[in-house]
């Protein structure tokens, strides 16, 4: 009985986590592509990424205002 209850709770927790992740929508992401064909995804904690995210928000605001 306890085992079934624990399994049920675990399943519910997993379901809630999945639902929340879907509701949260896409993550923020910054990708730079270079002339030599390479690509870099910037870590969102980096200052560079923050600057680029801010500039991109400006572009969205300019387009939608």
């Amino acid at each position, binding site marked *: 009985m306890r085992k079934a209850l624990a399994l049920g709770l675990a399943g519910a927790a997993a379901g809630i986590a999945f639902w929340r992740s879907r509701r949260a929508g896409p993550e923020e992401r910054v990708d730079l592509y*270079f002339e030599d064909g390479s690509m870099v995804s910037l870590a969102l904690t980096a200052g560079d990424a923050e600057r680029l995210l801010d*500039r991109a928000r400006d572009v*969205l605001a*300019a387009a939608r*205002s």
Partner: protein
Amino acid sequence: MEISSQIEGAVLTGPDGALVASTYDDAARGERVAEAAAELMRAADESQARAERAGITQVVVELPDGAVVVVREEGRAVAAVTVEEPTVGLVLYDLRTTLRLAADAEKPAAKKKAAPRKASPGKAAPKKTDGDA
């Protein structure tokens, strides 16, 4: 300028940074988007990642409410604002095609300017050679 349904709007700028074409009916909005996209590319060029590598050709910034994608080639740049969760590969393909078409549209004009005049009767036309050997 025709674009896919995932792209809300786009602007094309020339090598001098001036707005060449825009999908926005409001010209002022097109200018604002072009300026903001140029700032984004400047920030990308100044990033540490750029310092260690070759030039940047594409920037993709995904945000919860849409993405900003900029593709740059031979000085020209096209910047697009997309819907949420776009298929980035398709958007990049669209923008690269736009840049290629813009480059092709300028080529005939350049060729006309550079086209040699007909050789005068007294002069022989230059012969095409495959090399010295």
